[in-house]
């Protein structure tokens, strides 16, 4: 059933695959959700992302730290929303039509919403694509990777949501 001419024999494919396999340790291939915060490019591990919703009525929580914007109702579930811009860059958010709330599931903090300025795409990166963070982002970034020519900061979700540890 093979169409002649279109085939790369397995040997050739195997060679390229082997090269890939070298770079990628079996369970290190990761998928990241690329997002935009205050004009910067960031990313979240896709396993933590539950869903992405548009902005909606947020009820502020009295006497809560400024980083927590408030709570939203998500199909009946009440979820806190963290202003990621504030958290990462100490700038208050200015929501636009492109802003979104990324609903994440964290080990320690449970379900939470992250207010971001925009959501881009899902990136696939391998172990070899990961780099150490450049510093200067209040310790909330666990690493860097590339998206084309630009650098993308990979967010350490547990740190971001650890509101009691200071920022």
């Amino acid at each position, binding site marked *: 059933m093979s169409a002649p001419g279109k085939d790369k024999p397995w040997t050739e494919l195997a060679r390229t695959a082997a090269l890939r396999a070298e770079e990628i340790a079996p369970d290190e291939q990761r998928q990241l959700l690329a997002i935009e915060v205050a004009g910067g490019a960031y990313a979240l591990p896709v396993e933590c992302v539950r869903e992405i919703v548009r902005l909606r*009525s947020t009820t502020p929580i*009295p*006497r*809560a730290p400024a980083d927590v914007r408030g709570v*939203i*109702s998500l199909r009946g579930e009440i979820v806190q929303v963290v202003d990621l811009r504030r958290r990462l860059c100490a700038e208050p958010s200015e929501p636009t039509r492109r802003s979104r709330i990324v609903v994440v599931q964290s080990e*320690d903090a449970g379900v939470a919403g992250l207010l971001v300025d925009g959501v881009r795409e899902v990136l696939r990166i391998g172990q070899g694509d990961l780099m150490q963070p450049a510093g200067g982002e209040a310790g909330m970034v666990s690493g860097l990777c590339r998206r084309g020519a630009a650098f993308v900061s990979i967010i350490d979700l547990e740190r971001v949501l*650890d509101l*009691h540890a200071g920022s």
Partner: protein
Amino acid sequence: MATRRPRQGRRTKADREFVSEAEEILEAMRAGVSDLGDRCGANHGSDPELVNRLFRSAHSLKALAGMFRFDPIQDLAHRLEDVLDGLRLDRVALDASLCSLLEEAVATFAALLERVGDADALASFEAPVSQLTQRIAELIAAPRKKDDVLARLDVDPSLLRALTEYEEHRLRENVRRGRHIALVDATFEILAFEEGLSELTAAIREHGELLSTLPAPGEAPESQINFSLLVASDLPAQELGAALDFPKASVRAALTADRAASAPASAAQSAVDEPAREGAAPPEPSALLDHAGELESLRSISDTVRVDIRKLDELMNLVGELVIQRGALGELTARLCESAATARLGGELAKVHKALERKLRDLQSAVLDVRMVPLRQVFEKVARVIRRMRRELGRDVRLELRGADTELDKLIVEALVDPLMHVVRNALDHAIEPPEERRAAGKDPEGCLAIDALQRGNHVVIAVRDDGRGIDTRALRAHAEERGLVQPGEVLSERETLELIFAPGLSTRDSVTETSGRGVGMDVVRSNLAALGGVVDVESTPGRGTAITMTLPITLAIIQSLIVGVGQRRFAIPLSSVLETLIMERSAIQRSEGRELLDLRGEPLLLRHLAREFALEDPEPEKVYVIVLGIGEQRLGLIVERLHGQQDTVIKPIQGPLATLRGIAGATDLGDQEPVLVLDTSAIVDDATRRREVT
């Protein structure tokens, strides 16, 4: 390859490819069917390899026809597959009628293949094909001639179909050895199932062999996933369930002898008449006896229905939303009644609305009733933990549990586990002294922990009492002063001092609480309970013991709340804490010792401004509302700007990184998608009565 010519011109390339491959398969089938016919005629019995090959051919044909979308051929192949499957699993007997049926099927296939490319001709074959499939169906439905292990399993057929050959072999092997086969069902969140599932499978492996894991969509397919695990064990299902100690999983026996009884009588007869099946003979008759006991218990629970708690949650949510909509309907009705033009219509609508309200309350009660479960499971879990901890702590504690039959909403019971466990651990950790110390104090070296549950009206009171050291109020106070929660020299009553254990930041990082887990303090217990609409109290006598009392509403979901407004915001106050509501002129506020008070029928009522509590803008209007809150003996007048009325609300916990939200018990959605925060009245009252100044 194709030797038939008619209408070939109409065939597409795909058609031709299909026909060519199909004819190869058919050729193999023809040969196989013919062989089978020979064996049948010579009374040689079936040949498994042959039947298997035929089965595979039917498969391939079906798959092929499926890929090329030739429905009639696919249908027929499917039926054939069924009957051949039955044949190879010994569910269908090899006899003359089967053989002739197979021959006819092959002939029909050939005829169909001839007509590929000619839609009309194919259509004309519909009737004979359906007749054939009918006869095949009848053959399959005929009483089973031989008893098969797989047939005796009371599990969803889809579980059996997904077994690999090896898994099936393991299953048969275990049954042959007379082991119990159980079905364990558990539902998890899609995002986090692996952890829970591996915990469960690890537990299963300790008690038996995990034969197969089948995932299925959960009740809410987007977020849940259900796993059905087939387990072989020496323990019967109920014991296995107890041994697993996994409250989320349901365990039931999968191998029942009474299945034979429910199939047509002839099958039951033959099961007894033909015990001598290869490899499975010995256990069968005794297996029937072994399972007799299980049979009894299975029958006795047959008049209850096992319902997934998620279904109940959904049901409850729906009822909750219905209630909210009814509320909205009520408002509209009221408006209609007010306007002269629509008053009459409004009046009629009001009658209907009233009837709806009654029925809805009935529905609410009925659903809530279904959700009620006894505290027994929680108690058992506590007992297990204590048994485990006894070894760790090296001291013996007698556990007395009373009121296990007391019923609560299942959600509350589930949410109760954590706070209860924490309180119990606290007691074991530092309340109950080591045996030497106890003896020296003249106490029984074995400490006693008693958990009492009883129903009081709309509430259930759960008291955890220990006969240990009691709370060291001096140390507690010293701690509190250290943390700045209490000013040195500040006068605190005994009760107020005890209440300090609930202060946030006090009981957390001490070494004292190391065995209690992650340093979760009593403040979290209090807020956990507050989220359920409950309160917690403490009493203690030094040297004699401590009693922690938790009072919870019997039902969670729908609670009447008072909706109040301050500035731009709205808040909900559970009506159960509201004693009365007053309108007051600002000038009526009296000041004394840095507190604001109101003279309420001769008694001073401590006042608090909700706006200031929550650091909101306070426009300070002339006339305000005072919500008189009562928690236990304490009273507080909460000043708010507006009253929006009463509403049925469903209080939901607030999820997220902020762990404690002081003064907030949860949030509710009033139907307009904008969450409204629900006040933790006991925390607010407590806060106010402890503090002296108005901040």
